[in-house]
């Protein structure tokens, strides 16, 4: 009888330890990004910048001018172009991390296929007192394009630093066939 009780106690202890091990957040989670969430149109304050999303456009193809040449880019899915305003405060910052997280949880990095396009927010530096209005460009499969969250941070993998998160409703996007990035950024 006592042996049985001891055995059960050992099992229970092992189970408890396993549960504790499984439920302890990992180092990566503990030191992960600190979210600052909001909706499109709101000004979201992060530690070193504020972000205001103006609109989201889904397009079949995009067109832009860079290095004195015209580019037209197609995609297997859709182009998702976010028009946003960033303001640095209190210090000059650059945006190292721009991610699109779809409702299913897939994470898309900002597309590098549009490198050189005008007013890419991921390209330049943002100075205090000089808000920058520009674009972030993503490439999404068609079935992942409805709704989603935009994640913006100064580091590519923010650790213990804030990450602005803007969640979009499924019908938040405008759509276009061919989207001209030059026009969009300068309008």
């Amino acid at each position: 009888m006592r042996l049985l009780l001891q055995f059960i106690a050992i099992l229970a202890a092992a189970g408890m330890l396993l549960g504790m091990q499984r439920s302890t957040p990992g180092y990566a989670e503990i030191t992960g990004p600190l979210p600052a969430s909001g909706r499109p149109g709101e000004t979201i304050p992060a530690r070193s910048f504020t972000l205001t999303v103006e609109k989201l456009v889904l397009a079949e193809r995009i067109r832009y001018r860079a290095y004195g040449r015209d580019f037209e880019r197609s995609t297997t899915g859709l182009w998702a172009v976010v028009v946003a305003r960033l303001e640095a405060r209190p210090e000059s910052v650059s945006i190292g991390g721009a991610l699109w997280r779809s409702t299913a949880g897939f994470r898309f990095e900002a597309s590098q296929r549009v490198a050189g396009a005008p007013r890419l927010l991921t390209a330049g530096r943002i100075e205090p007192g000089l808000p920058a209005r520009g674009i972030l460009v993503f490439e999404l499969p068609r079935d992942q394009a409805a709704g989603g969250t935009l994640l913006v941070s100064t580091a590519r993998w923010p650790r213990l630093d804030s990450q602005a998160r803007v969640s979009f409703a499924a019908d938040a996007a405008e759509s276009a066939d061919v989207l001209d990035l030059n026009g969009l950024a300068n309008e």
Partner: protein
Amino acid sequence: MSKAQVQASARAMRLRRFSLWALPVALIAALALRGRETATNWWRASDLFPQPVRFDASAPLAGADWRVVSLQRVAERPDGTTVALLELEATVRDPAPFALLPCRIALADGTGQRWLPTFLAPTEVSRLPSRRNSQAKTCGPALASKPEAGAVLAIAESFLLPRAAFAQVDVVVSLAGGRPHYLRFARGS
């Protein structure tokens, strides 16, 4: 209980009490030992104590005497951005602390906003006639060149800032060898 047993249990109690009191001490000691390096690194990397300097004066920091040669407006962009060029002169006294990297040079206003140096298109900087033949480097390369004692270095950095802020900004110079102290060359005083 025999006398010996009583004595033994009293000794055990004393030991336990001692251990209990020793625990917080040991914990604090362990934290201090483990965290000492982190704390020193933080202390050496932070700008904590500003040292105000008149804008046209010279001040010592990290083994060199620093002086602001000029802070001038190089160009205006149509969106209200001012392109500013800052020229500094450092006279090296002690090369060892001077050559420690990284250095941070910034423009700061009274509300805590700071503008960090940017790379500019050469066309924008070369508009200044005096800049065309200048040997000035930016701060990092100037320090990395490991100058001898007595060398006089010309350092130049460029900035982008709003037109309204340009008139009021102070020049902030912070070097690895001088932290947590840094220089703040104040305008308008």
